[in-house]
């Protein structure tokens, strides 16, 4: 297995009692990336952004190197965590990119604190449900199948996965699943979000992999209808991890944010 976070620097902060590790790379105006429900597949895709921006990737509480707080039982607690982290880092206004679970989080943050988000990118965001295009309930998918469902080309993530069953890797994923269950077990989709998405008045880009098997690409249209002005970029030959699979997607985000 290779180091998923090579070329990033680490900082550790304590936010409302929770150990919060952030990775940073590059210089320039801040670009915050909110990761999905797992970040074991690394951040290699974000390095091109670091040529132009100061890329900041916080590990969410309960994920990767950040600490746990079982009292954080709803997404709102995570929105508040980022309000406090941005305050601590002196970030008044950021370019915000959110992927999957991080996409839901970015949307919820921007709905409530739009004045702090100059531009918003949602990559395969979780959170909405459309009966016409139901994706799988993540909790129902066996872990060994999830990894296969993330990408169209398995070689992209294979180097980050243990070759043989690995208790530590399994334990780390179970811990992140626990964090996710605290937030989403009862209500895997956010019924209230559609009511407030009209508040996303900042320039917004939706990015999707055409062959996303976790959150179907048709959901891009559901989001587009609810957000006043948004561009949509769909990439062929890519699954849910569209940023990992398609350099063109990474570049499109870069162009949109510049």
């Amino acid at each position: 297995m290779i180091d998923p976070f090579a070329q990033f620097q680490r900082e550790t902060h304590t936010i409302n009692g929770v150990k919060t590790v952030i990775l940073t790379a590059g210089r320039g105006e801040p670009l915050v990336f909110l990761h999905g429900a797992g970040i074991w597949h690394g951040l290699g895709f974000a390095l091109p952004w670091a040529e132009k921006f100061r890329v900041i990737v916080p590990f969410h509480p309960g994920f990767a190197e950040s600490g746990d707080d079982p009292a954080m039982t709803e997404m709102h607690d995570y929105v508040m965590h980022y309000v406090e982290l941005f305050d601590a880092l002196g970030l008044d206004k950021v370019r915000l990119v959110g992927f999957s679970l991080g996409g839901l989080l970015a949307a919820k943050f921007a709905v409530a604190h739009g004045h702090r988000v100059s531009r918003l990118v949602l990559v395969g965001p979780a959170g909405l449900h459309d009966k016409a295009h139901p994706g799988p309930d993540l909790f129902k998918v066996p872990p060994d199948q999830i990894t296969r469902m993330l990408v169209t080309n398995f070689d992209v993530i294979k180097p980050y996965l243990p070759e043989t069953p690995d208790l530590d890797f399994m334990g780390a994923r179970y811990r992140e699943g626990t964090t996710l269950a605290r937030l989403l077990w009862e209500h895997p989709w956010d019924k209230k979000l559609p009511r407030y998405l009209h508040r996303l008045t900042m320039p917004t880009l939706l990015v999707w992999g055409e062959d996303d098997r976790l959150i179907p690409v048709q959901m891009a249209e559901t989001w587009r209808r609810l957000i006043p002005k948004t561009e949509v970029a769909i990439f062929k030959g890519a699954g849910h991890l569209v940023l990992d699979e398609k350099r063109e997607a990474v570049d499109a985000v870069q162009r949109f944010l510049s």
Partner: protein
Amino acid sequence: MNGTVRFNFMHFMPYVPLPENQKEFSSLWVDFPNKFYDPERGHQLYQRYLSELVLADRLGFDAVNVNEHHNTAYSMMAAPNLIAAAVIPQIRRAKICVWGTPPNLEYPNRLAEEYAMLDVLSQGRLEVAFPLGTGMEYWANPVNPATARERLRESIDIILQAWTQDGPTSYYGDFYTYRYLNPWPRPYQKPHPPCYIVGTGSPETVELAAKLGFGYSATFVTKKRARELNEIIRRRAAEHGHHIRPEQLPLGVIAYVAETKEKAEQEAIEHIRYFFEDALRTTPRFLAPPGYLSVDQLKARAAMADKMHGKFDLDELSDARFIAIGTADQVVEQLEQWSEEMGTNHFNVLGAIGNMPHWKVVKNLNLFAQDVMPRMRARASHDSRAAAE
């Protein structure tokens, strides 16, 4: 042993007429299709199983035990209180142990009421356990496994408040708000029926039992682990100011008695095999929904997962677990040894094993009741008189 010894007959009431291709299903729990449940067969089985519980009472077992599972062929007792209510009028002497409904799967006031009803119906013969419930139950019920342990503590707190304080009272918790906690009826026994925690040895659950001074019984753990757990519970309970009596540490044993050791093994083995290979068969994912276990427990259990569910070797199994199969002499000897080692005088006898047919259950219960129970009771009582002299 300190004068008494107690024997419960535990029934799981399995649904056994499975399709021929059942081995193709990785789990007989959670998602095993319920189209395989035939209510006519179910009716016949209920009739039969109820008669076996009644037989245990007639033969002199001290208690009959039932418990709760969902979405599974392992058990037809999604609502064990209904079974308890059905047998209470037919059972003259034995206690009725509902061990039990996971409090997380019902409203706590409702469970306090149901148990109080059973206690009143049976004139104070109810005993209850408060299990967390297996991981599988959290896939079948709309309850978050990640907060299950906190919810269990709160549920038990509410039930005990409902039973021990004159109502109406109020309760403002993290999970439940009661403005008028005032359940009718109240339990027959004072202050309330004897309570146990049953579990599979999670440190959090053991600690909960110790703190409350409840009995504790671990299921599906090895002998070595069960002994450790009994030591831990006695020590921790003492540190919380409770003295745990031997009868508060029921020991689950699979027992089968026949004329000879060979005959006992020959008659029982296929059903024990069915129990471990089929009835208990499920997936690691169903066993441990997210947040149900601590990460340490998840890793510890994953490391020994192969031994927990599925693989079958009777000798290996008997080395590791409480399985007494043989002549009455052999079973007596075995149980007395475990009684010493485990510091208990309370046996929860799994005497209707897996897909065992009625005649074997009847034979087993008869031989156990005729040849095992009286000898162990006599010896226990003799030992205690000898100790007194």
